[in-house]
């Protein structure tokens, strides 16, 4: 009875494709359309936080840390609420990761603080005995690229309508106008730092007064924004 179907591969393949597409259409699309939107009150990252995110990517924290809390009790007990896709709407790229040598960091801003990160990034095993996380002391010496971070913010604003304010415009002038705001944010972070052997609080402040933001400050701003 169905021999005609067997003998007509083109029709058969189209039929299979149709059936699978139908399943995809009703199972994937509605969910996707709903979940891909930014959740209410989601704010795009500030320039300082974006610069910190660049540091996070450059130093490849994603090799050991994920940023995605799955809806399992064991995970939500440890890290807090499970992640929603709408929370990553402004992350380009998102940093879900797939390897957990260290713990998940998607909500680390809720349960770790500036002074803790400062000590931990300087020397992890001194804070968490037996930690195999490497120390990142070069972050005290290197300067974060806040200008590129600003350019990134302007680009995503223009390309994807990420809701940055009207003051985010192309050009050197707009950046010079915005820069003091970034330095002010950086100072707020340093105010909560305690200083390590590597660099005292005063030295950090001095660098920022000179218009340079050490990478560690930007990174902590980013980690604090992971909430």
């Amino acid at each position, binding site marked *: 009875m169905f021999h005609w179907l067997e003998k007509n591969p083109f029709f058969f393949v189209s039929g299979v494709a149709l059936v699978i597409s*139908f*399943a995809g259409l*009703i*199972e994937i699309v509605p969910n996707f359309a709903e979940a891909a939107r930014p959740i209410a009150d989601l704010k795009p990252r500030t320039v300082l936080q974006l610069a910190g995110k660049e540091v996070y990517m450059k130093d490849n924290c994603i090799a050991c840390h994920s940023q995605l809390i799955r*809806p*399992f*009790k064991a995970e*939500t007990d*440890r890290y*807090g609420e*499970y992640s929603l896709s709408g929370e990553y709407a402004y992350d380009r790229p998102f940093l879900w990761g797939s390897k957990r040598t260290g713990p998940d960091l998607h909500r680390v801003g*809720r*349960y*770790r*603080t*500036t*002074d*803790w990160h400062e*000590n931990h990034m300087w020397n992890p095993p*001194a*804070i*968490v*005995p037996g930690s195999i996380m490497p120390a990142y002391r070069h972050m005290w010496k290197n300067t974060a690229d806040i200008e590129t971070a600003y350019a990134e913010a302007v680009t995503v604003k223009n390309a994807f309508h990420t809701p940055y304010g009207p003051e985010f415009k192309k050009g050197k002038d707009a950046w010079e106008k915005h820069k003091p705001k970034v330095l002010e944010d950086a100072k707020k972070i340093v105010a*909560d730092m*305690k200083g390590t052997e590597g660099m005292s609080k005063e030295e950090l402040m001095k660098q920022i007064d000179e218009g340079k933001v050490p990478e560690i400050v930007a990174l902590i701003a980013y980690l604090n924004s992971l909430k």
Partner: protein
Amino acid sequence: MNSIQIKALGFAAILIIATIVVVTKMNIDVIHDSVNAITIGGAIAIATLTAAVAFKYIGQMKTDTASGELSEDNWDGIGEYKNELPSGWAYTFLAVFLWSMWYGLIGYPVWSYSQIGEYNEEVKAYQKKFEEVHKNADKETLQQMGESIFLVQCAPCHGNTGDGLSGKAQDFTKRMTKAQVLAVIKNGQNQLGYPMGAMPPGMASGEAAEKVAEWIANGAKGTPPAEFAVCASCHGADGKGNNGMAPNLTTYDLPLVQHVLEHGKKGIIGTMPAFKGRFTPVQEKALATYIQSLAN
């Protein structure tokens, strides 16, 4: 019975015996755990099927000769018998087809399964059971529970022994240092959300402040110094916090731990994040019990 059938039977028997040995040796709970039950069921089904197939078809292969009506399809002289679709297959196919239509058009859209829904139910059920089991937990249970929560959530800052990692967070082996108390007296404090509200700055100064701070830092033992009188109106004559109206200055009691967990705290040592909503009341009690035990 021929030799292949015997081998197949032996194989099936070994499978069944191995399964039973593993289950009994490893002490696996088959009756109450559905996943285990399904796995064991599967193992036995495979063994049985192996035996049945061996019995029926291997014998048949040896004795059967080809017969039946040839279909009209013919490939270079190689023909094919007309075989009816086995009725079991046909019915299964129909059933799956009907089910998929139901699932695609009604089942999924209307009663859609959700991972989050399953998570919520699981957590709710667990929480209920947890509160019920530990409603009247004794001190030892609370202490153990407190320790395990502490090691995961608090130890990265307060240290595995609760000593505050030489000054990086609160040291739980004592209540407060002199410097901490003096800083609070000088600057006041308003972040813990006690019923008494804010502690105003400058409640004492100079020698009086020193004396009071010294007394608290030394563990608030014995009678407080006369200068503590100004503090007593809020913190109680014994410094124990007036039944939760203001912080207990002598020990980490439950209200203090609750207030700190809810609001976090920023002091001269550093910043403690808030853990609002992360713990159940029993867990908070457990944490307070454990932290108090660190002082001794």
